[in-house]
């Protein structure tokens, strides 16, 4: 996980500089993510991984090879994480409550408010928030 965050840190500045809509957030404010209950964490994580893989990484057209490599690394790691979460789903430990579904819908709605290139770059820039949230939940789970 730390390697993933380190990987993003290397391109964070370049990506966030390209974001011209500073007053809008797509991933919802940090407090909203923090307010997700432990029982909803699996569902929200799965949904947000899908959001990034189905929309953000596909919509973003990256030309610079260095940044393309880092995004590819993150995208493929998300795919690996999603496969792991699917096992939880099979064991019925990844139930989606109404709150979790609403939180996911909010993210999608925020994304659609902007045009695709701007929305994609903004979501890319917010990856550090998402990664930190995943890491915190993972630590809390292993501590429990």
């Amino acid at each position, binding site marked *: 996980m730390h*390697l993933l965050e380190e*990987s993003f840190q290397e391109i964070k500045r370049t990506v966030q500089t390209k974001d011209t809509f500073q007053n809008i957030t797509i991933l919802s404010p940090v407090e909203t993510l923090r307010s997700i209950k432990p029982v909803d964490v699996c569902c929200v994580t799965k949904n947000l991984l899908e959001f990034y*893989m*189905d929309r953000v*990484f*596909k919509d973003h057209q990256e030309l610079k*090879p260095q940044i*393309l*490599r880092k995004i*590819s*690394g993150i*995208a*493929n*790691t*998300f*795919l*690996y994480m999603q496969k792991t979460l699917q096992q939880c789903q099979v064991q019925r430990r990844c139930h989606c409550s109404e709150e979790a579904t609403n939180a996911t819908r909010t993210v999608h709605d925020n994304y659609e408010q902007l045009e695709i290139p701007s929305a994609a770059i903004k979501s890319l820039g917010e990856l550090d928030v998402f990664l930190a949230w995943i890491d915190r939940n993972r630590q809390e789970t292993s501590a429990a």
Partner: protein
Amino acid sequence: MAGVDRMLHCKRNVPGQSKSAKQTLTMVLKGFRTSIIMWLFYTLIPCLLTDGGEALPAPQNLSVHSANMKHLLMWSPVVLPRETVYYSVEYQGEYESLYTSHIWIPSKWCSPIEDAECDVSDDITATVPYNLRVRAILGSQTSAWSILEQPFNRNSTILTPPGMEVSRNGFHLVIELEDLGPQFEFLVVYWRRELDTKEHAKVLRRGGIPVHLETMEPGAPYCVKAQAQVKAIGRNSAFSQAECVEVQGEALPLVLALFAFVGFMLILVVVPLSIWKMGQLLQYSCCPMVVLPDTLKITNSPQKLISCRREEVDSCALAVPSSEELFQAWI
């Protein structure tokens, strides 16, 4: 019969008509020849044009050799006389192959490269199958892409027991493991051989640095073994062969005791001797005892000498000179 007559009739041309037939035939033959030439032209030109591309074959026999999370893509080199052929490597993670299949990413260290092998460890950064492809480059010419037959997943890497150096620094048990990079952690297990004590375990986050394990006691040797662990792929290596060290405790105190005894005896003898000698030296140098020679010794009593001096000064003065005067004369 009529048809034959017609044919014969047709055959039986008048001289004027045979001349035009000849001309027609010539024209047809000319046209035919032109067509053949044109046909040959159109078929050969592409061959001539692609002759350069076909001379640059695609690399063959692609394979990946992976050990301790170092992944090496190798292929048979394309050998051309008097030419240096370069290669370009591209990769595609499972994400790209599923979601953006047209996207291939140039390898970090091998775009281009001269050797017929490429370290793709920095490209394969997730535990998913990766497609890899290589092509040859010669100037402006490029070969077709050769793709690795089976996608490569880094969880198939061979993990070997880590290289280990166990040493003794005084009474400290020290271990240094080989540095295998940030993906690796190590489980170190140590115990005392021949004693029925439990095993101890310690997790080291990085290799390449000496680490203190335990302060040793003399007696049984200490044995150590280690295992490499890679969390990213959820696998561990086998344990290394155990290495043992011990501290020489029993012989040492005996030797020390012997030396201590000898030293003590020396002290017992030498010190009083020294003190006595020092005392003598001090006595002679500070307060020397002066012994009067016999000739200067006064045999009469002091009272008699004094009365003698008072009554008969001259005679007494001549007979018994004072000791101070004698001394002064002597000095």
